[in-house]
């Protein structure tokens, strides 16, 4: 009953991405904004060092696509995020479930993980650069721990929310420890795990941009920060658009559908 209700009442944005008309409705305000930008900049003769014109940004985009630097920056950034997230999720989920198995242990460890998930991400940049040197290792570490602590904490919460009766029911029907783990605990915690991944990635993405500004020589954050040294606002604005579009794509096409489908499939239906 409640599941069907959840299906019919999808968020406005999720439906719009699916349908073409919705996409047009979504893009129209953004296009209007670009049109406004195209009018305002020449009209007030804004100094290109302050804000670039649409044409200059387009030229910068074409140039970076042609000489391959854009692909290199995007590739480097995505590789770091992908690798850091992968290691983070692989280590955090088993740990979170193991901690959540016993209620006492979970209660004991919750404050610890809360503390560390608060620190996750950017606050680790200084010490990460000291441990791993400026570069790939430090950035992957920052992303890893942004994802790790948030996912572990959410997995722990997810396992805690599974009613004990479900575990007992499975056990009394003859399920062994392993079966309870894979068929009750893991699916039950899955919605929380996916929410954790989404939150963690949100922190990791910001951490990535910050870390790339500080600690590397390739990647989107670096692209922006170097352009600043030469007052090339057109490259900065183009980079910002790329970052925005990339995150929208990752979030809307990958994370939101993943979250929705896990909640629909495995989410607990509760009677209010």
């Amino acid at each position, binding site marked *: 009953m409640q599941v069907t209700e959840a299906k019919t009442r999808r968020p406005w944005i999720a439906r719009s991405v699916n349908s073409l008309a919705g996409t047009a409705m979504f893009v129209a305000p953004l296009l209007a904004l670009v049109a406004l930008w195209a009018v305002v900049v020449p009209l007030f003769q804004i100094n290109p060092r302050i804000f670039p014109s649409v044409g200059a940004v387009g030229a910068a985009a074409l140039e970076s696509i042609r000489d391959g630097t854009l692909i290199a920056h995007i590739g480097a950034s995505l590789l770091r995020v992908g690798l850091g997230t992968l290691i983070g999720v692989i280590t955090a989920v088993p740990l979170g479930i193991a901690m959540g198995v016993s209620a006492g242990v979970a209660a004991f460890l919750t404050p610890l993980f809360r503390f560390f998930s608060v620190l996750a991400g*950017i606050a680790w940049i*200084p010490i990460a650069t*000291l441990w791993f040197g400026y570069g790939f290792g430090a950035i992957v570490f920052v992303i890893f721990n942004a994802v790790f602590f948030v996912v572990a904490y959410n997995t722990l919460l997810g396992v805690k929310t599974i009613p004990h009766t479900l575990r007992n029911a499975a056990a009394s029907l003859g399920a062994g420890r392993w079966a309870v783990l894979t068929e009750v605990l893991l699916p039950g915690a899955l919605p929380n795990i996916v929410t954790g991944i989404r939150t963690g990635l949100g922190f990791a993405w910001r951490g990535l941009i910050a870390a790339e500004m500080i600690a590397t020589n390739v990647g989107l954050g670096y692209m922006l920060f170097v352009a600043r040294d030469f007052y090339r606002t057109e490259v900065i604005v183009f980079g910002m658009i790329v970052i925005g579009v990339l995150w929208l794509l990752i979030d809307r096409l990958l994370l939101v559908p993943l979250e929705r489908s896990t909640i629909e499939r495995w989410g607990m239906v509760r009677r209010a």
Partner: protein
Amino acid sequence: MNVWLQCWSGYIRLTQRWPGLAAIIPFIPVVALWTVVTEAGVFPRAFLPGPLDVVRSFVTLTYKGILPDYLQDSLIRLLAGAALGMALGIPLGILIGTSRWAHRICWPVLLFFQAIGDIAWLPILLIWFGFGLTTMTFVIVYTVLFPVVLNTVLGVESVPRDLARAARSLGASPARVLWEVTLPGALPNIITGLRNGLGYGWRALIAVEIIVGTSGIGFLMFDARRAGSTTEIVLGMIILGLLWYIVDAWILAPLERATGQRWGLVTS
């Protein structure tokens, strides 16, 4: 085994009598492990300082007055940014939530600008405003604004239309409906938005202080990194964690719970 069980039951009894201890005791084994690892010399001191070193540097920095100053700077920036972000975000959220047209026009723009993320604005802000307070405040306001606006919109939309209509038919003016129906109904969501926004804003502040770097806890950490002094980095991390832990667990989370209980809509 028996000793462990006795310890455990003692712990349970202790935390039942003083629930506050449950937030402190779990850190004792971590600090103990940390002490053992550093004392045993598993990692060089330059990589991982011991707890005593950190306490010593805490005392020195407090005595010199650097730490209180920096902490104050960071907190004032965060508070000013959060206040401004709320002042802009709540009215905007209510406008977007109540008007269909504003919703259609603003929602995609909001999502896109949220996706750009606060820190990506830093380079162009540095060109516009230079290395200074304006840049930092802008970034924090930007960070706090979006979660507040998006959650306010969700909150306003979660208030059943019937309630507003009922108030109208009983003779309430639109302003009164806004003040007595829409705003209280949206309040739990607004607080959630504030909590998320501050969580992001706090991290953004650290990044900004590292990059813009004139004062603040983030600056303290990165300055220490330049000098290669891990002690102060670890000290900075602990202060950040503790501070946010206190703000979140003792102020924001209870606030969220209280508004949820007082004004939350009962959905059945």
